[in-house]
């Protein structure tokens, strides 16, 4: 075959080469703008953290392994971003996001949004919305759990739900509000619920009081703002606070082109008014901000489940309110379903005003992302009187149960069980039989005769109080513990409250309460799951408290936790013969104590801390305390000569998992006490082998974690970033290895 000339021979490869170069350049440009959809796993780009829980499934899992057991202890602070420079907060409970080379967060009581350079902690942009009275009287005036992210690989958005209930869509590159979304990038979430907006006014310059006292109100005609006293009408429009309040604590979740948003409420333990706004879930179009659908978490007359409200469920009626889904939501983009963990109905400890099961309170509800229609639901607590809101994002997993591949969703709870369902159909994976439970003796309280109780996995917290739970190291110790235990109503779980005045047939003035309102799992804890192994790592607390109810003389409720609202703005007027109730909080001297000589009357068990379950079998795999076991000593002569067992450290641990590690922070209430020495008590981030729970690393950090951490890869380096601090001292801290590995 005759040889072609060099040029002729070169042209082909040159053309091919140039094409490849151009294609490569084009692909690089595409990559640097956004990941291709085909590389998304559970909605997240591997190595990124695009959702509050890492991915749409809420796994809190990252496949990264640059940080591992061999080098964890060499982690150092790469940078610290001072959120406090932008304003104050409560404790900083935000988990930031990482997407396409940028770190995103919210911060301060204003929930301002920021983009941060992950390499050096520089602020790239900031956005802040002025909300007037709607911020001043926001029931949840804090940064909250974080923002949400969306991309179609062309555009990127950061979505924020503000404390004053505005839905904001920002260009993720610049922080500029999307002009095509709502009005100048903002959708008013007080619209679209069927309430007219009215001008708002305030009579005091403070925040909403922890009940529903000192709310804003509808402005009087012609009312203006008094800049000196900071009262009056400032031009802000909103839903008339006579209906109650809605709030926001958690990010929206974006699935496909739909933003799914719910609401929180004011705290439920000392409400004054017998009604509040019902919770809803809504879908909005990410491009236009148009409201696509509404799902009522309190079914309205004619809707499925309305008959579980025996006094009626119409919004505004006495006894109706809340069922707010305040925790983050998880979703299965392939199934097109979003999973909503729902809080409880109105009034945390008493439900005489709302007889019935009160759907969809304390339920896991699966909604169709596009239509908002209910696919299935499961109510975990009927007619809740224990403040057992579903407190946490559920976790999605694919596991093999009894030889069958199952798509599951697992809900961690305050009451101490994981409830596991087929996430397509809602069928329990392991039976949860309706089980007879103790009934309330309180007048007009009709407790549910049964509650569903998961048969697997085993509980992770102390539940109820039985004689077998008591310390019994000597007969005298057992005697004293039993005497204290019998003062209050005992039982295995779901113990109804007693009346403080001793007027019940049992004459008891208190009931044992475990888990309490703080869980179990609650706000700051929750689970990480491993999609490779089917393991679930549940961080929780375990404790013991008591509960007593009494009539609050200045609230509309028959009973509540012992509280006196008299004198507060918005409370009922003092009744005739009013006498102050005395010390607030139900602290009736020592009679409702749970300790003797500083020692808990409950035997220490492997509860709280981090419990690892194999969700292929539902069996417990291992358990570790949060940070440390704490030595217990007492000077009480009752314990003379007795070697008391250590107790697990408290506080909700904040856990994520990676290819080989479970990584956790102690949370703001956790960590060894100072009495165990400075080294033990220093704030630390821990790493354990995820198969065995054995600790493989512990690094000192500037301050305790105050939110779930996150991890990502940026320019070839893996970072772990977490929030710390409170008040004016909040920060994001970034850890990384000392040098990029060769």
């Amino acid at each position: 075959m005759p040889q072609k000339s060099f040029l002729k021979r070169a042209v082909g490869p040159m053309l091919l080469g140039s094409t490849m170069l151009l294609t490569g350049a084009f692909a690089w440009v595409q990559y640097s703008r956004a990941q291709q959809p085909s590389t998304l796993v559970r909605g997240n780009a591997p190595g990124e953290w695009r959702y509050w829980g890492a991915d749409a499934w809420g796994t809190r899992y990252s496949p990264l392994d640059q940080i591992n057991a061999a080098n964890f202890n060499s982690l150092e602070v790469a940078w610290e971003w001072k959120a406090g420079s932008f304003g104050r907060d409560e404790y900083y409970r935000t988990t930031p996001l990482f997407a396409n080379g940028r770190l995103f967060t919210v911060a301060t009581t204003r929930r301002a949004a920021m983009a941060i350079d992950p390499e050096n902690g520089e602020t790239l942009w900031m956005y802040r919305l002025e909300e007037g009275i709607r911020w001043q009287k926001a029931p949840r005036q804090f940064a909250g759990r974080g923002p949400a992210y969306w991309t179609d690989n062309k555009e990127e958005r950061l979505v924020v739900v503000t404390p004053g209930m505005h839905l904001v869509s920002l260009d993720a590159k610049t922080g500029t509000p999307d002009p095509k979304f709502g009005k100048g990038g903002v959708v008013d979430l007080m619209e679209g619920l069927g309430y007219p907006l009215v001008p708002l006014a305030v009579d005091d310059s403070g925040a909403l009081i922890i009940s529903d006292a000192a709310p804003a109100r509808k402005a009087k005609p012609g009312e203006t703002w008094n800049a000196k006293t900071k009262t009056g009408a400032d031009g802000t429009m909103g839903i008339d606070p006579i209906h109650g309040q809605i709030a926001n604590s958690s990010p929206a979740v974006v699935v496909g082109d739909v933003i799914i948003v719910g609401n929180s409420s004011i705290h439920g333990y000392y409400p004054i008014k017998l009604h509040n706004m019902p919770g809803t879930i809504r879908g909005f179009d990410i491009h236009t901000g148009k409201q696509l659908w509404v799902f009522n978490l309190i079914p309205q007359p004619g809707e499925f489940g309305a008959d579980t409200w025996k006094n009626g469920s119409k919004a505004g009626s006495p006894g109706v309110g809340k069922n707010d889904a305040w925790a983050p939501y998880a979703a299965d983009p392939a199934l097109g379903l979003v999973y909503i963990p729902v809080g409880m109905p109105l009034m945390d400890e008493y439900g005489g005003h709302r007889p019935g099961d009160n759907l969809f309170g304390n339920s896991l509800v699966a909604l169709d992302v596009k239509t908002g229609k209910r696919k299935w639901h499961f109510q975990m607590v009927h007619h809740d009187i224990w403040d057992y809101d579903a407190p946490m994002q559920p976790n999605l997993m694919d596991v093999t149960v009894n030889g069958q591949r199952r798509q599951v969703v697992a809900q961690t709870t305050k009451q101490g069980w994981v409830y596991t369902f087929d996430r397509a159909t809602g069928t329990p994976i392991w039976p949860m039989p309706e089980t007879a439970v103790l009934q309330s003796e309180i007048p007009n309280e009709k407790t549910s005769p049964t509650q569903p109780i998961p048969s697997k996995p085993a509980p992770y917290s102390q539940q109820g109080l039985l004689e077998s739970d008591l310390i019994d190291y000597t007969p005298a110790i057992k005697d004293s513990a039993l005497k204290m235990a019998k003062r209050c109503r005992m039982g295995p779980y779901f113990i109804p409250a007693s009346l403080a005045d001793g007027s019940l047939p049992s004459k008891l003035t208190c009931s044992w309460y475990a888990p309490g309102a703080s869980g179990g799992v609650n706000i700051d804890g929750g689970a990480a799951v491993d999609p490779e192994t089917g393991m679930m790592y549940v961080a929780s607390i375990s404790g013991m408290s008591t509960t007593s109810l009494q009539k609050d003389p200045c609230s509309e409720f028959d009973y509540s936790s012992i509280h006196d609202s008299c004198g507060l703005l918005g409370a009922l007027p003092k009744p005739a013969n009013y006498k102050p109730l005395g010390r607030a909080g139900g602290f009736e001297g020592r009679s409702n104590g749970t300790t003797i000589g500083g020692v808990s009357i409950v035997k220490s068990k492997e509860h709280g801390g981090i419990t690892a379950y194999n969700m292929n079998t539902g069996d417990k795999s291992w358990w570790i305390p949060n940070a440390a076991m704490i030595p217990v000593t007492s000077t009480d002569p009752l314990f003379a000569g007795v070697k008391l067992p250590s107790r697990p450290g408290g506080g909700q641990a904040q856990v994520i998992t990676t290819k080989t590690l479970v990584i956790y922070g102690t949370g703001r209430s956790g960590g060894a006490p100072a009495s165990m020495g400075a080294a033990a008590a220093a704030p630390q981030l821990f790493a354990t082998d995820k198969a065995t729970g054995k600790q493989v690393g512990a690094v000192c950090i500037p301050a305790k974690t105050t939110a779930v951490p996150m991890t990502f890869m940026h320019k070839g380096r893996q970072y772990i970033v977490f929030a710390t601090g409170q008040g004016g001292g909040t920060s994001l801290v970034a850890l990384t290895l000392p040098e990029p590995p060769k």
Partner: protein
Amino acid sequence: MTFPALRWLHTFLRVAVTLCLSAILAPPASAQTAGRSTKDRVYSAAQAAEGRDLYDGRCKNCHTAISHTGPPFRANWDKRPLSDLWDYILEKMPKDAPGTLEEDEYAKVLAYILRMNGMPAGTEALPADKKLLRAIRIDAPVPKPSQQQ
């Protein structure tokens, strides 16, 4: 005696008589209320500032300031020794994790509660010491009209 001297003597005697009368007519100080008052600059501003951050992080998600000021504070704590309030928060608070603050942190929060109730700050930090706190009486302020109905 010169006129100014007479004036001085008159004033002295008047003051002395007033003081003596006060001493005679004042109610006998009980063991609980003897000693200092929370109005006597018993905490430091720096301590209360740190207490504010702790309060915001560990207390505010359950309480707003109203729980510890105005009519509720007065009704529950007025005229009690400060050690009573110390005992209460040490054992029972934060409600979601009772007893988990260090003692100096409880003292800071207590200082902030006093600041919230308008007590004046001084130069000395409030001691994290029950015995010393027992000698301080809580004098809760009379609530302002806007705090009452």
